[in-house]
């Protein structure tokens, strides 16, 4: 049953991706500017300009350009970058891992901070601990990721020199951007954990657990937390898009050649195939993350079944 559900969800991805590509393609087609000016340089003669345009089929009408693109995607080929003249898939393969690493570290930090903070705030509701956690989280929510990133860079890399200022290819380069994502993301997640926890703690089964003499620790971690985590998992799945968005700015600040920067550079240079390719990969991964979240529900709460 479960497998069937997953397959169904994956099949449903296809129309989403098609709509997305048409959307992105039209934006680019109708937006001013084209990649040729970048290749040709500011001083190219009109003849040179036109010949480059022809070379990449950019002189064709919208529908033909789109169909040509769709055909190559269906063939498992994301096309060739106009500016770098090499397969888009190769470029994504180079850039994606580092972005995933930052995202993963960010999630880990989120989880490690948000769950304990949320639980403490809920259990010790209206105490100093609760106020501290919630004030901290309010600050985190109010602080944009890129701003926190710049702050961390200034203090820990520039002043204290514990970390490299620009990406150096080692794991060290991931720590600060990971924290920038993790801390801001933890802020909103902690609030979610707290409110969800408070809800659960009011439930009958918690009262039953307490009355049968379980220790408070068992009640909170064994019974309440598990149920409280379900909405948190949903939130985390949905936050993936947000994390990638935040990672664009962070990759620029920390000079890390990830997929976010690839996209920004390609958008500015109007390198359509690269933007399309990365959008397909990112959309798919966001959808997959949400499927993963659905699967995780069943792990956390065995009562949930899909059919």
């Amino acid at each position, binding site marked *: 049953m479960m497998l069937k559900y997953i397959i169904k969800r994956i099949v449903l991805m296809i129309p989403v991706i098609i709509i997305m590509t048409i959307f992105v393609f039209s934006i680019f087609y109708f*937006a*001013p*500017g*084209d990649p040729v*000016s*970048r*290749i*040709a*340089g*500011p*001083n*190219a*003669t*009109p*003849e*040179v300009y036109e*010949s*480059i345009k022809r*070379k990449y089929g950019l002189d064709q009408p919208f529908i033909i350009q789109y169909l040509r693109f769709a055909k190559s995607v269906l063939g498992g080929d994301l096309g060739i*970058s106009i*500016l*770098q*003249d*090499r397969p888009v898939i190769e*470029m994504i393969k*180079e*850039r994606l891992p580092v972005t995933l690493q930052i995202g993963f*570290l960010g999630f*880990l930090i989120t*989880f*490690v901070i948000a769950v304990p903070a949320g639980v403490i705030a809920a259990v010790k509701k209206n105490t100093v601990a609760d106020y501290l956690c919630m004030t901290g989280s309010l600050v985190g929510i109010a602080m944009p990721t890129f701003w926190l990133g*710049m702050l961390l*860079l*200034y203090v820990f*890399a*520039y002043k204290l*020199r514990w970390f*490299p*200022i*620009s*990406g*150096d*290819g*080692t*794991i*060290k380069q991931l*720590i600060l951007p990971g924290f920038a994502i993790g801390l801001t993301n933890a802020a909103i997640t902690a609030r979610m954990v707290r409110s969800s926890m408070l809800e659960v703690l009011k439930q009958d089964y918690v009262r039953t657990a307490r009355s049968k003499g379980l220790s408070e620790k068992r009640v909170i971690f*064994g019974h309440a*937390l598990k149920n409280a985590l379900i909405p948190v998992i949903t939130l985390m799945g949905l936050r993936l898009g947000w994390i990638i968005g935040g990672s664009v700015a962070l990759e*620029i*600040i*920390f*000079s890390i*050649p990830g997929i976010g*920067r*690839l996209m920004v*550079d390609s958008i*500015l*240079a*109007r390198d359509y195939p690269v933007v399309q390719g990365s959008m397909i990969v990112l959309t798919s991964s966001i959808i997959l993350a949400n499927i993963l979240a659905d699967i995780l529900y069943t792990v956390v709460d065995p009562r949930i079944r899909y059919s």
Partner: protein
Amino acid sequence: MKIHKLRKIMVSILIFTLLSTVLAGCSKGNDSGASEKVLIIGYDQDAEIMDTIKTAWYSDALIYIHDRLITRDYEFGYKPGLAERWDISDDGLTWTFYLRKGVKFHDGKEFTAEDVKWTIDTIKDPDTGSPFRGDLEAIKEVKVVNKHTVEIVLNYPFPNLLYNLSSTASGIHPANAYEKYGDDYGKKIVIGTGPYKFEEWIPGDRTVLVKNEEYNWGPEWMSNRGPALIDKIVLKIIPDENSRMMELEVGGIHLLRNVPETYVEKLEKNPDITIYKNPATKLGYLAYATDKEPFNDVRVRRAINHALNRKEIIQFVLRGIGEVAYGYLPPALKDEYLEESKDLAYEYNPEKARQLLAEAGYPNGLELTLSADNSSKSSKLAEIIQNQLKEVGIETKIQLYDSAGYADMLKEGKQELFIREYSWSNADIIDWFLLSSRFPYPNHSRWVDEKTDELITYAARRPTWEERAEAYKEVQRYLIEQAVWAPIYIPMHMIAVRKEVKNFKYHPWMLQFNDGFDIEVKK
């Protein structure tokens, strides 16, 4: 029970992450060889392809990977490069180049006349789609006379070939490089004869060059004609301006070109950093669509010129670091620049501007749009120009575009007033921007004028460089008279250099790192 397990897993993940961080920290620092001399240069943007033939957006790495037939010395003069010497026939139509012997490509192949022919022919082949093709359109044919002699036959006299053959775009490639190396050429393999070899390129991150130990064919004007002293050059991409400056301060990069004016004061306070300032071969100007009303009236164009207080603009936008521009070329182009531009130019005089506008039939002023790209520099420029024009009765609405959008808008011809800055070290920039055959783009000021065409074509086709330079002065005189643009400023080319770099020598075109530059190795 399960919860305990979960906790255990979480804790072990955490420990693993921390451990690997610490380990990564330990391993770093040991990998750089003890005595290797590495120069790290910071850049804001990477190139898309490492091939001089296929892009107009060169990586600086290509300057050091390739040699060119002609070089430019510290005085900006044209000197022998891969060509030991050259003759030009009396009619200016045949150029014979005598090539240096004993020069080898990085792949071991000997450099010969065939390589010159292949490079130029490939650029000229329309199927290549080279953006440089237009620059070589004067070339009719490249003939291999013998192994070390090559003849370039022209369609018309074209002394600017000197410039075109010395520019980065005409770096010499080994013959048949595309066939031999296939798709990897320009990505994973780049072959030249230059003082540095291509080692590695991680797009968006870094390019690494290692010195060519066999190099001994540096041009005569260099004090070091043999192998470079610095072992490795790393071109590091740091897109964020702030991060770039911090890296320079902590020594993560040693050298930075095009330092923004806003950082100069801070960097100059740092005893480890020296900033070298020289007038750039750039020109910032206000232009207008000269084929539209009211700009088709020379009085309006002159009024706009009179309305600009250039000193104030330089103070406000460039923090006073820059020079007032009077003419259409940067004064650094010593041969071609028209010295009397300053006397001919339109001085700041709002009264006169108002009067000219009244004469032209606009006593109550004008309402126009002022376009610019969305960089912070251009938007600042737009603001102050808006203010100054207001003083003489010209109300403007500012419109900002991203760079690709800006180019497109200009091409479509929607502009009225607009701000531009060009960076080019040759008088032929005037051809690009103002010949009627370049209309509507790159002739974005939409200047279609017979006399200009005549003067430019005459200048460009003089048989000698000296006559060409003189003739271009006439072009400039006419352009000033017609007030085709309102030139504003010549920025400074600023290079920040850390104390580890020794024997720094400024070059007006491109730093020659192989000419005796050295670097202190960190102990």
